[in-house]
């Protein structure tokens, strides 16, 4: 009877591999991955490649001079040219603050200067400086201006109290906090927040796309078979168990085709362009969860999809399942802040969420060995249980036409068998 299962599997695989929905899913994912890479690049602070002219309006006259000197010396481009040139926009001698600002605005709009800083009040204890430019998101320069001005003001105040500025330099700690992710073997690896986030995100999206595209294909094909009554020919030719086994097998073939294709593109891309944002150290473990999740959801889609009779219902039901799959994507941010949280662990042990939660957690922080063993065990129990229940629903569901059965009926089918 295996022969018939293989016949069904082959048909399901070949017919779906040629479908538009599958091909779209196949190519969409790599595009999303590349898009994510670009996106993370955009978010990261970019180094300037040419010298920027920054204006300073300083009515006090105390700050502009030292600021220019220090900024030009401290921050250099990769070609050793200064990153910033500070241009003092004079105030006084008949030019008041307002007209100086108006002129600075003109210069900024005309792109003669990249932006300008206005020292609007200077004294103890507060000094207020505003940085104005066309790009408000230029956080780097704001941070650098702040740091430089702080040290200038501190030195000026120290001098005013008769303290040697060199002493101040000694007193100030030079602080540089770097993010370092510790890997399993205890090796250190410099890792930014974005890299971890993107890795988790890409794996989640892959698993999501994998399950959703094949799930939808499966449900749609069952509905087509029901509406054209081919299903009657099928179940008079093979037993419903053989039919379902063939469908699951064919679908698994689809899943592997997708993963293999993506892995190929991913490897080629990282070799070619050195896109290293996907950390591959735990790929094998992730693939285990991918397979488990895939099989589990195949059973769920069969159980949920086979009693349906129309495309609209199918879309509705798949959208509920999609919500279930999206949960970990929504949780990505809080999970990164506190990877050891109890609620994360609890969610991981719900079979519907186990594979996706693991796909989220593994790149962020490797869960404990017992958690991995326990969740794999849970999946290994849940999958056959889900398959048996799905098989019972499938047997009755594929022959129900007209009005879709009630949920209570479906649960009864799943129990009784």
């Amino acid at each position, binding site marked *: *009877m295996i*022969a*018939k299962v293989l*016949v*069904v599997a082959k*048909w399901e695989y*070949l*017919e779906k591999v040629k*479908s538009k929905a599958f091909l779209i899913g196949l190519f969409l994912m790599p595009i999303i991955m590349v898009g994510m890479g670009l996106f993370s690049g955009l978010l990261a602070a970019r180094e300037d490649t040419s010298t920027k002219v920054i204006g300073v309006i300083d009515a006090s006259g105390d700050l502009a001079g030292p600021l220019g000197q220090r900024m030009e010396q401290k921050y250099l481009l990769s070609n050793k040219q200064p990153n910033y040139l500070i241009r003092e926009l004079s105030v006084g001698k008949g030019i008041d603050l307002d007209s100086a600002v108006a002129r600075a605005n003109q210069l900024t709009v005309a792109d003669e200067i990249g932006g300008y800083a206005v020292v609007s009040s200077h004294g103890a204890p507060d000094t207020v400086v505003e940085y104005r430019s066309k790009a408000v998101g230029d956080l780097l320069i704001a941070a650098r201006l702040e740091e430089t001005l702080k040290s200038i003001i501190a030195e000026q105040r120290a001098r005013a109290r008769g303290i040697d500025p060199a002493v101040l330099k000694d007193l100030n700690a030079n602080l540089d906090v770097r993010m370092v992710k510790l890997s399993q073997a205890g090796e250190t690896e410099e890792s930014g927040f974005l890299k971890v986030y993107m890795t988790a995100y890409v794996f989640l999206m892959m698993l999501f796309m994998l399950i959703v595209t094949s799930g939808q294909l499966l449900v749609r094909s069952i509905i*087509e*078979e029901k*509406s*054209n*009554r*081919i299903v*009657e*020919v*099928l*179940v*008079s*030719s*093979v*037993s419903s168990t053989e039919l379902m086994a063939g469908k699951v097998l064919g679908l698994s073939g689809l899943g592997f085709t997708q993963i293999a294709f993506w892995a190929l593109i991913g490897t080629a891309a990282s070799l070619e362009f050195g896109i290293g944002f996907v950390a591959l150290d735990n790929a094998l473990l992730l693939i285990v969860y991918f397979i488990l999740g895939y099989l589990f959801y195949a059973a769920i889609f069969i159980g949920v999809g086979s009693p349906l009779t129309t495309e609209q219902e199918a879309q509705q039901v798949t959208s509920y399942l999609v919500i279930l799959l999206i949960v970990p994507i929504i949780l990505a941010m809080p999970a990164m802040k506190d990877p050891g949280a109890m609620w994360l662990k609890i969610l991981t042990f719900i079979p519907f969420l186990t594979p996706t939660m693991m796909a989220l957690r593994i790149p962020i922080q490797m869960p404990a060995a017992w958690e991995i063993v326990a969740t794999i065990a849970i999946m290994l129990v849940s999958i056959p249980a889900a398959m048996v229940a799905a098989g019972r629903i499938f047997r009755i569901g594929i*022959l129900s036409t007209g009005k879709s059965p009630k949920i209570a009926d479906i649960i009864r089918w799943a129990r009784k068998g």
Partner: protein
Amino acid sequence: MLAVRNLRKDFATIRAVDDVSFDIGRGEIFGLLGPNGAGKTTAIRIVLNILEADGGTITYDGRPFSGALRNQIGYLPEERGLYRKSKLLDTILYLAEIRGMKRAKARDEALRWLRRFDLLTYQERKVEELSKGNQQKIQFITSIIHDPVLVVLDEPFSGLDPVNQILFQEALRELKQAGKAIIFSTHQMDQAEKLSDTLCLINKGKVVLGGTVRDVKRRYGSNSLHVEFQGDGSFMTSLAGVRRAMIYENAAELDLAPDARIQDILKAMIGKVEIRKFELLEPSLQSIFIETVGIPAGGTMLQGAA
């Protein structure tokens, strides 16, 4: 080949099949008749092991259903379609292979049938590009390509144009000659009358009449009389043995009771009108069908048959 005994199937609120029995032998065409919703399709699904019966037995050559039998059954469902996006030949081969046919053999047979139905040039086309009639030919091919012993066709002629009807009827007769047991359901009585050797009429899940076509006609048919005459024929309504009469200007259609005596009726007419034509008509299945199912007065006959 097939023996069905006291078949019963209940759905939530109705008894869809109620104590149905019939036999079909090899080389026999069996017509399963009945109005829409009579339980024909349910009975067929049980015979095909798609549904489980709630009571009764079915044996195939004396044995109960087994998985191996699946390869010996051919089935054409009532409301039908095919995989729209799939290619013609691929679809035929798939449906042949799940009936246990080897692919190479299936291909040979598929091409032979496609040639016969003049569809050879379409083999690489998608199903949805075919006309409805041509799709029905494909469905017919898929139900018999694997040389089944039992062929079950649910409403095979519905929606077919006359040319294709003849094509299908020829194929059915060939299958009969080849010794297959054939079940076909229909609510078109003329089809059943032309094709079937034995038949069974079911209504509301119950068998109301059954047997060979001749037998059924003899037992359940009421003869009708066609008379052409000159004169006043109004007296004919009240003649003994006449159950119903339609009197026209110069002609009358008389439905006779089973015990009507033709000679007496003729005698009664002579002298009253001038008879030009006096013809006894064979009952059609159509009239039997309406008589037993459609008209409440036939209720006595309905019970008598069950």
